[in-house]
């Protein structure tokens, strides 16, 4: 196997998540250049993992700004639910009125029907 083809695989297998194909492993075992390259990838990964313990501090007032935005978002949410609630009550009122009107109409029609039947009888 050629070094170039193995070199393409090294960044994939360096962390051990993906298993190297047998022919890649066989090549690396006998090729000093590819072994050196793999060592360099391992050094890179180690250095990257160490960055995890480095912290930068955000600007002072970050927490205050976040809380202020949350408060503002909370107030907008409350306002929205209030408006939604009013709209629901309004639509509910219309629906109730329509239902009542429909029921009254049905009663009138039913009573007229009974009267016609009595006259015919």
């Amino acid at each position, binding site marked *: 196997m050629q070094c170039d083809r193995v070199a393409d695989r090294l*960044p994939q297998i360096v962390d051990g998540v993906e298993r190297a194909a047998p022919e890649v492993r066989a090549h690396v075992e006998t090729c000093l250049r590819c072994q050196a390259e793999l060592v360099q990838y391992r050094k*890179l990964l180690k250095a990257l993992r160490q960055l995890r313990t480095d912290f930068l501090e955000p600007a002072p007032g970050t927490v205050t700004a976040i809380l202020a935005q949350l408060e503002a*978002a909370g107030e907008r949410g409350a306002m929205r639910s209030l408006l939604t609630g009013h709209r629901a009550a309004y639509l509910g009122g219309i629906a109730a009125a329509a239902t009542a009107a429909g029921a009254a109409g049905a009663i009138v029609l039913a009573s007229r029907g009974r009267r016609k039947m009595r006259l015919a009888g």
Partner: protein
Amino acid sequence: MAPDMAELVIAAKAGDKQAFTQLVEATKADMYTLAYRLTGNAEDAQDVVQEAYIRAYKSLKRFRGDAKFTSWMYRITANCAKDQLVKGSRNRHDAIDETTEAVDERPGPEARLGTADERRVLAEALQSLSPDMRAVVVLRDVYDLPHDAIAAELGITEGAAKVRLHRARRKLRERLFPLRGEDDGREERARAV
């Protein structure tokens, strides 16, 4: 005594704003650092962190607690950073892809990685990558997020995330640990400057 993160999460989910504030206090430097590494500048990082905590607060009830709060926040921060970079690229009218990668013509740091300023050199090398490549390598190799989570937050397939990761590792390795023959081109460029 340091606050117990799991207890704070439970309290915050129950509506305790003070508990959420403590969660922000405990994790803000971590999230800001991630945001800075992904966006490459302090102003964007600040915006990303604020947006991330607001999104976290709104979706806190959906956080099941089977992952660590910090891992969950990493994902949200990564997603916000992606949105911020897209917004920035729209404003700049240039696309974020591998072709927009910054080209650093200075000589490589090579063996200086073993010295005291190793982390600064590495951080500079990360910033030389395109935002797409940088995001994947930072999330995977610095913050240890799984491939599927990275793909989900960046809106790409797992396969694409892996390809970007391998390219990014290769570029970093070539820049920071060049093998014999690999730094010839860089030396020529340095001489030309």
